[in-house]
């Protein structure tokens, strides 16, 4: 069992998704229940990854390695370390919540909808544990397809523009990554093993070109300024569940790519171009936060807020300090909970009012007190209040970056002020206040299903904030190893 846990984590949702697809749309109830069972099962098989994880080693665990295409030396090679483990669990955990949250508000093509999410889950987990370049690339590209369909089929009015923008942006980025991987294949003596690449000596020019190729692929996914404009459009048009997965997991792919590929494979180029990465991160934190303040569409606001929060992540990576990098990883995990919750909260409102315009709301707390209380918690998480998960990552990144350059920390910490401004101003306008619109007066508070989903996320937001130690323990050894690795030059003497 233990030996092929990762395969189970990947293939149970994919096969399950195909089964759900086979059920067909006529039997929507059956499709929902089957999807729930599959997602729970898929979550269950990822739990032993955590319980059986050895925190004392930075080596890949639960490894699987089977020859796939022998003539090209391509392997079906999987493994996890402290950097990827949480994202696998986050993916399988959130998919359960996504299935539950879409229980009633998706009525058309239910089986296809659920199947898309399950298949996407398997592919995303595949990205997080693939150790073969081709396998990684296949999962990386394949996961776009379900998301493309989710936005394109179940999306809003401008969904076609959004999907094409989303697809072209992310696809064009990935193609360059493929070129870089092919270069590495020939350079490393015909290997597609990502772990081999980490030890392949590379000259500075090659490193910089590879870095740029990777950068384009990952920066688009995160997204970093200035290739971020697809995200607000995609979010606005995506159905709630799509937004949740997009924000909570897909954005992490790019950041994960930096950690798994860019930093260890081209450390010298990473150092050389760190200034650029830091600059772009700080622009994300400051510029994008200001843009978030003036948004009038709730989803756009949270989308811009996501970009600003991801700015902390990339900033943490490129100061090459272990506290900052661990902070970045925790920030990614926390953002997985909080952005998911924020989009779900907006979804709760959208299901009832069918508008995301902040001006259409006001005074929601009068009629939906439980919802208001939960959303306040997530808003505070978004603001980075100590005691919530949102604080831990930002705190560690600020601490870590100060070590390198106080100015980075000072500029990044402005996020403390801007984050509070856009989040709480949104809250004031939408949730507080007297009731102006009669539609708001008729709103009903959360039902049991919504409470279950948001309550679960609330629990994790608090747990990670009050006691991050167990989360950090997993990450620690791997990050220490990574930091040691990138401190050593790979330029052949």
């Amino acid at each position: 069992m233990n030996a092929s846990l990762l395969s189970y984590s990947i293939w149970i949702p994919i096969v399950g998704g195909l089964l759900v697809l086979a059920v067909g749309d006529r039997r929507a109830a059956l499709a929902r229940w089957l999807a729930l069972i599959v997602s729970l099962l898929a979550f269950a098989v990822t739990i032993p990854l955590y319980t059986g994880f050895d925190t004392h080693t930075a080596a890949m665990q639960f490894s699987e390695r089977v020859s796939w295409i022998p003539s090209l030396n391509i392997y079906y090679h999987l493994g996890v370390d402290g950097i990827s483990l949480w994202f696998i669990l986050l993916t399988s955990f959130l998919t359960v919540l996504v299935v539950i949250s879409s229980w009633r508000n998706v009525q058309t093509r239910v089986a296809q909808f659920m199947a898309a999410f399950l298949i996407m889950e398997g592919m995303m987990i595949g990205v997080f544990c693939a150790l073969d370049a081709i396998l990684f690339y296949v999962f990386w590209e394949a996961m776009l397809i379900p998301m493309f369909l989710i936005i394109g089929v179940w999306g809003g009015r401008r969904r076609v523009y959004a999907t094409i923008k989303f697809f072209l942006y992310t696809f064009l980025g990935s193609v360059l990554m493929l070129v870089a991987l092919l270069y590495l294949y020939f350079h490393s003596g015909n290997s597609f093993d990502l772990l081999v690449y980490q030890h392949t000596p590379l000259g500075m020019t090659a490193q910089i070109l590879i870095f740029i190729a990777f950068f384009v692929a990952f920066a688009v996914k995160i997204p970093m300024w200035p290739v971020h404009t697809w995200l607000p459009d995609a979010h606005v048009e995506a159905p709630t569940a799509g937004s949740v997965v997009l924000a909570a997991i897909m954005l992490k792919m790019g950041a994960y790519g930096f950690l798994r590929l860019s930093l260890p494979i081209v450390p010298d180029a990473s150092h050389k171009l760190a200034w650029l990465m830091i600059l772009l991160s700080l622009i994300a934190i400051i510029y994008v936060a200001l843009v978030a303040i003036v948004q009038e569409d709730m989803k756009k606001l949270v989308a811009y807020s996501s970009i600003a929060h991801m700015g902390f992540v990339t900033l943490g990576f490129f100061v090459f300090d272990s506290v900052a990098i661990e902070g970045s990883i925790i920030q990614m995990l926390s953002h997985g909970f909080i952005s998911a919750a924020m989009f779900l909260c907006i979804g709760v409102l959208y299901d009832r009012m069918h508008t995301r315009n902040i001006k259409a709301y006001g005074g929601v707390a009068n009629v939906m007190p439980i919802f208001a209380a939960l959303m306040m918690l997530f808003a505070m998480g978004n603001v980075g209040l100590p005691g919530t998960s949102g604080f831990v990552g930002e705190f560690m990144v600020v601490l870590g970056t100060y070590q390198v350059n106080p100015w980075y920390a000072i500029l990044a910490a402005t996020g403390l002020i801007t984050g509070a401004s856009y989040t709480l101003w949104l809250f004031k306008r939408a949730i507080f206040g007297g009731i102006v619109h009669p539609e708001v007066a008729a709103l009903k508070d959360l039902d049991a299903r919504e409470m279950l989903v948001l309550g679960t996320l609330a629990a994790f937001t608090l747990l990670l904030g009050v006691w991050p130690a167990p989360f950090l323990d997993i990450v620690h050894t791997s990050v220490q190893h990574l930091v040691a690795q990138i401190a050593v030059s790979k330029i052949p003497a």
Partner: protein
Amino acid sequence: MWVFDWLNAFPPLLVYLIIPLAPLAGSLVAGFGGWKLQEQAHWAPLTGVAVSFYLALAVLFQTLHGVDFYGNIYIWAVLGHLQVPIGFDVDSLTALMLVVVTFVSLCVHLYTIGYMHGDPGYARFFSYISLFTFSMIMLVMSNNFLQLFFGWEAVGLVSYLLIGFWFQRESANVAALKAFIVNRVGDFGFLIGIAAIYHYCGSLDYRTVFAMVPHLVGQTVEIIPGHPWNVLTWIALLLFIGAMGKSAQVPLHVWLPESMEGPTPISALIHAATMVTAGIFMVARMSPIYEQSATALTVILLIGSITALFMGLIGLVQNDIKRIIAYSTLSQLGYMTAALGASAFSAAIFHLMTHAFFKALLFLAAGSVIHAMANEQDIRKMGGLRKAMPITYITFLIGGLALSGIPPFAGFFSKDLIIEAVGISTLPGAGWAEFILVAGAFVTALYTFRMFFMVFHGKPRMDPYIRDHLHESPWVITVPLIALAIPAVYAGWAYIGPVGLGHFLDSSLVIAPQFNTIGEIAAHWQGAGVFLVHGLEAWPFWLAVAGIVCAAYFYAWNTGLPEWLSRILSPAAWLLESKYGFDTFNNTVLVRGVIQFGRLFWHVGDEKLIDGLMVNGTAFGIGKLALSWRKVQTGYIYHYAFAMIIGLILFMTYFVIWKG
């Protein structure tokens, strides 16, 4: 003491843990069970805070006997090689703060039962104020900067929630948002300060950091290249920015007057007695750092003095009873801050304590008045209330005398001690600061008794219906008033020796010999009686008396005079009424500026440049290109054949001429 003896049977950590956890439990019960408990929701929070208060007394009693505690509860996280714990540092300073916080909190809890009776958010209110008590306790008991920051931001959160408690009101929501964001500006500095501490000391634990401080003396940092700053000054000032936000010092004071939008009990608890003094407490706690930087101390002294006088002056022209007291709070916080600057940490804490009593008393008494006046807060519509509300009247008078610094009430001792310490201080600007603080004594008495006479004396100016229904408040309101009036009377002369002169706090504070103002006063100390007699011969006392006399003359006898005065002094009145323009500046420059930049980045940066020019421009360009190239593809065979022949000729030419 015998009432605490049975606690010895338990492990000390357990006792310490219950102090914060009891109010937290009360808060959770009221919060989650509120929909069912309704008007009974106060029992759990009240019990929780009462337990905390009792245990805080026990802890104070222990520390009097030299029993301190310093230990960790659990490891919050491991940062690099550093374990960051959640833990307690219980010494005399903490114990004193605990007693003040839990005592005022208990009074306010009791008072709230009467004051918030019938409010639909009754349970929610209790849940919030107990949560606040928990957060404040965590703040004062912390033994590390992380937990301090947790408490620091958590009290800010509860303050935000309580200012906006009546969330249907636009003004309350605006005030809450403003309070949070202005505090965040302070916290921004505070966080950078913590990062700097981590950088230079490699730890966030108080004791480790304080032990490192002597090694940092003389080290410099160039935040702006070419300008070496003393590391400790840099850290001290960053932390002080946090204190300026929380303790509402100029120019981060703008949120406090507006916080009066919240219900009165929290104005007493949070915005007078406890949360706003967190900054004062923090600087005192960090005395080992501050004592190493004369620059930082000077800045603190000057900012405190400026706040003390100029905020008091605004209080003169306010007509809302709560805002007058709020400006008074700003001014008194300025006194405490000035004391910190003069290294008179114990005097600052002493004033913090007496102020907590008499200011909470004033707020709660004001609340009692507002309650009787059917939520009217304008003192121009009051008058002559003394007959209908004798208990409120007497207790308000006690609070007012204490605030004005009239002996033998509590405020006299603490304020005179501060002025004396500032007078001894040798920092640059100390003489100027002393002058300002002495002048402030007159202003304090004037605005306090202006309010007092306009509310309780003179002709009733309210409408007849309210006048006929005036009544003293119920016992749940008057009992806390009396409970707070007692220490407002005696806490000054009783505690100036042990607390104000700092023998009790000695173990918690570090004072450099060259700044030892309190030590100098203590050296000539002959007891509270002599101090009192000495005070009767000094300026502050006579200025305070003059202030009261002026107030009585202006507002009780010759009531036409103030109007005439404000007419001939109209520029000054205008300056005060516009509150020196801070709000106007913030709204027009900062808020609007941020929004304009946001719009600019959004519409021009994202939409025009990135999307318009780069993304859609690329798509458009490719489309254009394809369109023009399509013309080449005519579909006629002879066109293609012709092109191929030309190509072939060019190729051949190339090979023949250059390669051949």
